[in-house]
């Protein structure tokens, strides 16, 4: 009778008593720590920093609502903001295309019937597992103007050395070269896995039809690898927009702000000047840039990514 008077409650109780209900409860208990952790440490901070970005706040007082003032100041009155946008864009354009193409070429080379493939793969992977701080300090030494090995090599080849990290022109390229070296191995391993998942039949059929190596590369490898290329590109863009440690360790954002990136500027505003609201606005601008570029890539992929031949 009671099931008729309060159907919803009764059904809920039935559900709890059933096998499916028990399974659901158990499932919620199992996912609880992770979901709770993600809500507390990721989801709520995302919302909180949106709120802070509309306030003026130095950590000591209470946040003061000032609507869009931070964003207006950023976009119209802060030349440093645009400099950091430009520098970060330079870094992304410098690292992502070169890094992707180079990794693809090396992956193809490693996917041939080559001796010691595992050794090569390990060697290319060594920089990836090293920390950005360690390799930044290492490359500081390599780039050192008078005694560094890079200039030594350039002089040996008959060029003149460059004052890499103390030059407005060369500091960012120096960081870009190092970062490509650092990340190459990761993309190589992804590309190799992708290459190995292409069915050999396609190549055999093409050989029967008289296709040469170049045709096979253009008509089979490139299209069938495109989902992997897409993955590599998307991830590299997301990661490289967040560049910080390189610039902090190697140049402190200098000389004359030529290597100051968005995250570096955010760090300065938030944790050196304690302009928490302004830093949050910076974080959100970065967030919007990354999300829109990622969405754009997902939209654009329909034109060039093939999920089958």
């Amino acid at each position: 009778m009671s099931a008729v008077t309060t159907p919803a409650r009764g059904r809920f109780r039935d559900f709890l008593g059933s096998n499916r209900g028990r399974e659901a409860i158990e499932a919620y208990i199992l996912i609880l720590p992770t979901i709770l952790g993600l809500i507390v440490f990721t989801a709520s901070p995302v919302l909180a920093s949106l709120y802070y970005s509309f306030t003026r706040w130095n950590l000591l007082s209470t946040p003061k609502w000032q609507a869009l003032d931070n964003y207006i100041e950023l976009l119209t009155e802060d030349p440093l903001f645009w400099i950091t946008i430009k520098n970060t864009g330079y870094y992304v354009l410098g690292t992502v295309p070169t890094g992707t193409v180079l990794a693809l070429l090396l992956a193809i080379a490693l996917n041939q019937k080559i001796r010691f493939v595992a050794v090569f793969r390990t060697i290319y992977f060594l920089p990836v597992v090293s920390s950005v701080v360690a390799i930044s300090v290492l490359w500081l030494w390599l780039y050192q103007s008078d005694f560094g090995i890079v200039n030594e090599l350039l002089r040996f080849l008959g060029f003149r050395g460059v004052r890499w990290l103390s030059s407005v022109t060369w500091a960012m390229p120096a960081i870009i070269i190092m970062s490509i070296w650092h990340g190459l191995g990761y993309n190589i391993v992804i590309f190799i896995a992708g290459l190995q998942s292409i069915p050999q039949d396609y190549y055999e059929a093409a050989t029967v039809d008289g296709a040469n190596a170049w045709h096979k590369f253009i008509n089979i490898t490139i299209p069938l690898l495109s989902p992997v290329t897409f993955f590599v590109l998307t991830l590299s863009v997301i990661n490289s927009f967040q560049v910080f440690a390189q610039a902090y360790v190697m140049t402190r954002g200098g000389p004359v702000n030529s290597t100051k990136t968005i995250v570096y500027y955010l760090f300065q505003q938030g944790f050196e000047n304690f302009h928490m609201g302004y830093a949050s606005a910076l974080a959100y601008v970065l967030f919007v840039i990354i999300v829109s570029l990622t969405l754009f890539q997902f939209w654009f992929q329909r034109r060039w990514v093939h999920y089958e031949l």
Partner: protein
Amino acid sequence: MRTARVDRVASRRQQQLLANTITHILLIVLGLAALAPFWWMISTSFKTEFEAFQIPPTWLPLEPTLEAYGDLFLNQPFGIFLYNSVKIAVLGVGGQLITSSLAAFAFARLDFPGKNVLFIIVLSTMMVPYAVTVIPLYIVMHRIGWVNTHLPLIVPAMLSSAYGTFLLRQFMFSLPVELEDAARIDGCSSFGIYRRIALPLMKPALATLGVFSFMASWNNFFGPFIFLDRKYLFTVQLGVALVQRQWYTSWPRLMAGSVVVTLPVLLVFLLLQRYFVRGISLTGIKG
């Protein structure tokens, strides 16, 4: 006729050989480029200050010395830095393996209302840049008195691994489900199935995740940099940055610092390489 074909076969073989040689040369040259900086790092770390500045540079230290390493551990507390890094990594990774394997098991094997929505939420948190969450996190940690403790680096890592949940869930899909069905018919609870059947089968993927998160934790710079400013709480990464600030032209000591922070991850990588490579293809390709 016949000689023409033989010629053609021969020339194709020659072409193949040429292509092969070029590929090898390319791989070796670039391989050397990948290795040379490491060689330089190790070699410089054993040099005297004087020899580091010698022109032309010496590839092998002429008078190898451990002076630089001695300075790191005697004049700077690098032993403590190492201990801090190990502690943070082990606790964070250990917690993460438990929580994310539990969640991955539920997402892969159990049925419950809201499952897809919750999983999409988990996935989307993977794309949030650290820079976006770091300010509110700092503020919360500041309020509850966790700044200048290791807790902000350990607790979130223990609980909130979207990446780990995703990786282990992908792996669960590749495991046969029959054994679990049989156990369920025998009256085993979900947690029992997780612990007795799924967890042992997940071992290889747990190793992969463990290696990955250990490296991420060990190499993390921004987190410790924001939350710690007392020297005795520093991790090795902060230690190297500190040494760089204090001894900025003493290349043997800076290189010794880099060797000390790089060596542990390098060893972990070399010993557990296969888990690493598999982890990348597991998330990378099916992602």
